[in-house]
């Protein structure tokens, strides 16, 4: 993170820290700063210096230490957490604000915050800048996240937002933009890892007066919140990426589809769109050019399957979110029958960065992960693609927090699988993880310790897929039910070797016969745990249950 020239307090008010009193903390600190400035001005009998700026910002990273507070003063930035603080959100906010006011009073009429270089918020602990969780990150997508106030366009503009859009407008060469995206090798960050440049080219090649750009923010994988973080922390970065994409493919309208479980992200995106429209970065003649591009928000209503692009299209059209067979791909016929470019939130947020840095500096790019489960330091982090899973979990996350050793790391949500502790040196990229029988997916990493029952975990994910199956195709609608029944039978120690064989056979049917990705990958958590932890399954087998016997009531 860059150092700030003038003193400032940045308080994380994203959903994670908010649930730990982050917004209260910001409000109390802001009031304390204003009062201190008023007092100073009264004493000096003159208009005083402006109060210390207390800014609500997006995610600062290690959510498990939240609420997080960054103090920028005297050209240094220090990050504080309150992990060990048992006080209620209000008590903490009052205590910190009182400490702040006291320190500010001491400085009198000097420029606000001059004395904050050594200030430690009462009850807080310092997270040093060289802590691996912070030091090993390469923040490209999250560059502005945590620095700017996501509700203030001026803040984002000052930090460089819409600069690449302006450059693209001035250059006015869509083919060059697509070529740059293609050269970068950027792949979709939503889970499918399809080359972004190819997708853009396909949409650009379609004839037609009207085309659409859709941002997929239906982040449904449990344990994944990278897109929430980006949308809450730097919504303008996503809008800028969408506008550049619209220019490149020739679209004039866009949708940001956000799941309803993210109310703060929805509010911030809506606000960002309104601000961008007022300042001419969205709407007719964007940035004073001859191009028009407008964006509206569509809010989901609770359906995991809507992350699948054809289901997402149906949902945008106000229909049941059932997937349909492809082809035709959305590039050809998407929402409202129009050629439609669909990319994930993080993919769009990558666009301005890679255009600015150029392919050389951008390199392979980065991936944002959310690190959760019983790990010492969890939260959101962005690392170069290819960083090893061990680095993320053990070095940056600090390893297990439960006292039990790490058993595996779950990646890719209900469509993914587990990486056993013995294979943690795998680099995180799609190809390496696929070779291990799992997926990079959208970036959710759930650490599992030795206390985790892997068959129970497989049943958990199967129940998830059963509940979220849209019901359109038979193998997914009925197969997930049958697979969960078999898993429950094993867990109840009523299963036999024949049941285990049947489990594997049905997995093959469901994965090869299902209509969409949800059904096709629903067996993966089961197959992955079976591959790496088979003894846990065989230990549950009941040799005597071979013969038909009375069913237990």
């Amino acid at each position, binding site marked *: 993170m860059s150092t700030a020239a003038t003193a400032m307090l940045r308080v994380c008010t994203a*959903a994670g820290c908010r*649930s730990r009193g982050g917004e209260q903390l910001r409000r109390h600190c802001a009031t304390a700063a204003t009062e201190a400035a008023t007092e100073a001005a009264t004493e000096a009998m003159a208009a005083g210096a402006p109060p210390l700026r207390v800014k609500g910002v997006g995610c600062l990273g290690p*959510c498990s230490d939240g609420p997080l507070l960054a103090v920028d003063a005297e050209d240094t930035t220090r990050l504080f957490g309150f992990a060990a603080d048992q006080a209620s959100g209000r008590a903490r906010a009052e205590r910190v604000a009182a400490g702040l006011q006291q320190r500010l009073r001491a400085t009198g009429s000097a420029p606000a915050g001059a004395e904050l270089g050594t200030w430690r918020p009462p009850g807080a602990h310092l997270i040093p800048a060289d802590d691996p969780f912070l030091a090993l990150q390469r923040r490209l997508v999250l560059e502005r996240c945590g620095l700017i106030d996501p509700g203030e366009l001026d803040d984002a503009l000052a930090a460089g937002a819409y600069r690449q859009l302006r450059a693209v407008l001035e250059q006015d060469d869509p083919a060059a933009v697509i070529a740059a995206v293609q050269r970068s090798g950027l792949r979709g960050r939503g889970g499918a890892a399809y080359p972004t440049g190819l997708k853009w080219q396909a949409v650009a090649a379609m004839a037609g007066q009207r085309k659409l750009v859709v941002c997929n923010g239906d982040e*449904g994988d449990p344990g994944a919140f990278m897109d929430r973080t980006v949308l809450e922390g730097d919504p303008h970065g996503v809008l800028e990426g969408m506008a550049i994409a619209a220019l490149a493919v020739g679209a004039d309208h866009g949708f940001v589809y956000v799941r*309803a*479980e993210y109310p703060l992200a929805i509010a911030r995106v809506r606000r960002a769109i309104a601000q961008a429209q007022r300042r001419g970065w969205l709407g007719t003649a964007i940035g004073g050019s001859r191009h028009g591009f407008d964006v*509206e928000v569509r809010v989901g*209503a609770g359906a995991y399957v809507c992350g699948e692009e054809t289901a997402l299209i149906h949902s945008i059209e106000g229909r049941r979110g059932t997937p349909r067979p492809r082809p035709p791909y959305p590039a050809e016929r998407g929402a409202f029958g129009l050629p439609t470019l669909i990319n994930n939130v993080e993919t769009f947020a990558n666009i301005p960065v890679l255009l600015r840095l150029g392919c050389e500096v951008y390199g392979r790019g980065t991936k944002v992960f959310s690190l959760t489960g*019983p790990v010492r330091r969890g939260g959101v982090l962005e690392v170069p693609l290819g960083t090893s899973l061990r680095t993320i979990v053990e070095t940056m996350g600090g390893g297990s927090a439960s006292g039990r050793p790490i058993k595996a790391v779950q990646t890719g949500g209900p469509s993914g699988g587990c990486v056993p502790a013995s294979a943690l040196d795998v680099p995180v990229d799609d190809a390496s993880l696929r070779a291990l029988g799992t997926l990079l997916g959208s970036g959710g990493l759930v650490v599992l310790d030795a206390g985790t029952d892997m068959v129970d975990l497989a049943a958990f994910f199967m129940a998830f897929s059963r509940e979220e199956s849209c019901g359109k195709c038979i193998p997914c609608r009925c197969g997930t039910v049958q697979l969960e029944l078999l898993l429950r039978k094993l867990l109840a120690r009523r299963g036999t070797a024949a049941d285990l064989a049947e489990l594997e056979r049905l997995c093959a049917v469901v994965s090869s016969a299902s209509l969409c990705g949800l059904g096709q990958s629903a067996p993966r958590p089961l197959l992955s745990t079976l591959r790496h932890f088979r003894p846990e399954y065989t230990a549950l087998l009941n040799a005597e249950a071979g013969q038909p016997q009375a069913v237990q009531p």
Partner: protein
Amino acid sequence: MAELHADGLIEVLSRAQELEGHLSPALLRHVARRLRLPPSRVLGTASFYHLFRFTPPAAHSCLVCTGTACHVQGAAALLAALQREPLAQWGIELGTVRCVGTCSGAPLLVVDGRVWNHSSGATAVADLRRLMP
């Protein structure tokens, strides 16, 4: 793509539920008429999505997060503990939600839209009792 077009159905239903608390047959019929959609299409769409409800809500809602991080850190035990309490008598509707994306507080509850971090059966029951009038 104006507001009162068929493609705005989900937005209209969300807004209607915000105002009325739930989607009654009369409300669904009204929406169908205004959007010029067949009633079966309106209900078919509404019933597809988890967040739409067709019965009035209780005074308070308590959702146990059953996402992965919460599951491996005790969400099932938390849910079981709450299911043993007469929450309905306290005016609290118990439900589940699949991950609200603030997993560092696992296992967590969402009570009337607010996140309660690191909940256990005992602390949750004690705090929920305080919601009673």
